[in-house]
């Protein structure tokens, strides 16, 4: 499980780099350190992680600046937040669509709050299928 989470952290870095790739032709100061950041993250993932929130550097993407904060809990990556977002004027929106904007990611966590209504891909749930399977086994005996 831990491994999968790190793989996904890598993925989010890939998105950052992808966002910066479009920058190469537009700006002279290409944030090459982005790839260094990804490398650092990989290196860190192979050693012991300390709990806390860790902010990355601010990087200039042509649709705005991006900075992420990684939250480590119990030695595992629990959350990655983008703390600075690109502006969302209509124009940057259409540009973003081409450039894959950095979107906030997090590890899903079970919530304990009480809710009134539930939205979900519903009904033909595992319970339903399991029950049907039981019934078919019984029917087959």
């Amino acid at each position, binding site marked *: 499980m831990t491994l999968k989470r790190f793989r996904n952290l890598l993925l989010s870095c890939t998105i950052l780099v992808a966002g910066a790739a479009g920058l190469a032709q537009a700006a002279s100061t290409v944030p090459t350190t982005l790839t260094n950041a990804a490398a650092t993250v990989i290196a860190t993932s192979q050693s012991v992680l300390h709990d806390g929130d860790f902010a990355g550097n601010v990087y200039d993407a042509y649709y705005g600046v991006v900075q992420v904060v990684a939250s480590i809990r119990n030695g595992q990556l629990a959350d990655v937040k983008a703390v600075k977002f690109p502006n969302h004027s209509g124009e940057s929106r259409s540009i973003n669509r081409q450039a894959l904007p950095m979107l906030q990611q997090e590890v899903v966590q079970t919530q304990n709050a009480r809710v009134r209504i539930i939205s979900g*891909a519903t009904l033909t749930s595992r319970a339903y299928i399991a029950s049907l399977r039981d019934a078919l086994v019984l029917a087959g005996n």
Partner: protein
Amino acid sequence: MMGMPITIEIVDAPTADLGQEIFDWFNHVDQRFSPYIETSEVCRLSKGDVSDDELSDEMREVLVLAEATRLESDGAFNIRRPSGFIDPSGIVKGWAISKAAKTIAACGVTSFYVEAGGDIQAHGLDGAGGAWSVGIRSPFNDKDIIKVVALSGQGIATSGTYVRGDHIYDPRDPDRKLDEIVSVSVIVDDVVDADRFATAAFAMGRDGIYFLESLPGVEAYAVDAHGIATQTTGFGKFVR
């Protein structure tokens, strides 16, 4: 409707008649649009038993909306199966809820929600005076909630892999296994838009959340098979 449970909660001035009218409406929609009812208009249309002139106004409305969505999503959303069968499930549920909510609102009711098969339109405030709290179900365990959002004047729809078996597929590549993204929840003012965009985005796999990010007034929360969620920039304003 479509074999799904339906819930209606009306806070102010409820009348039994209104509730019955809404349930009758969902039953009517099922009779017309269900791919599982052989005599439904949608089945007769698939088989070529109905000419264009004979189509009901409701069918026309759904077909127009489906075609608009197909174009908006660059073909990811398509109610026409490779077999030639027409399956409007990815849009009819939201459309029916939206109509039901408009009927209720037209009766002067301001605080209520309508839910059918996990898609919701919520207006006004709940009985305790707050926005309606809606839990997004975990795609990994149907007893768990992975996010709580507060809705008042919005609809939410969720598309996922174990909704009703495999009813979602990518029409551009019918054999592609849609296993990367397991759940996409979309919040927008009208639940019919939430439903059709959730269906389209789910069919797009990892590109889906960027498609949703590009749509004005649309916020979303997508979960992948590893339990990593990606959200659109404005989604946080709904999170409790």
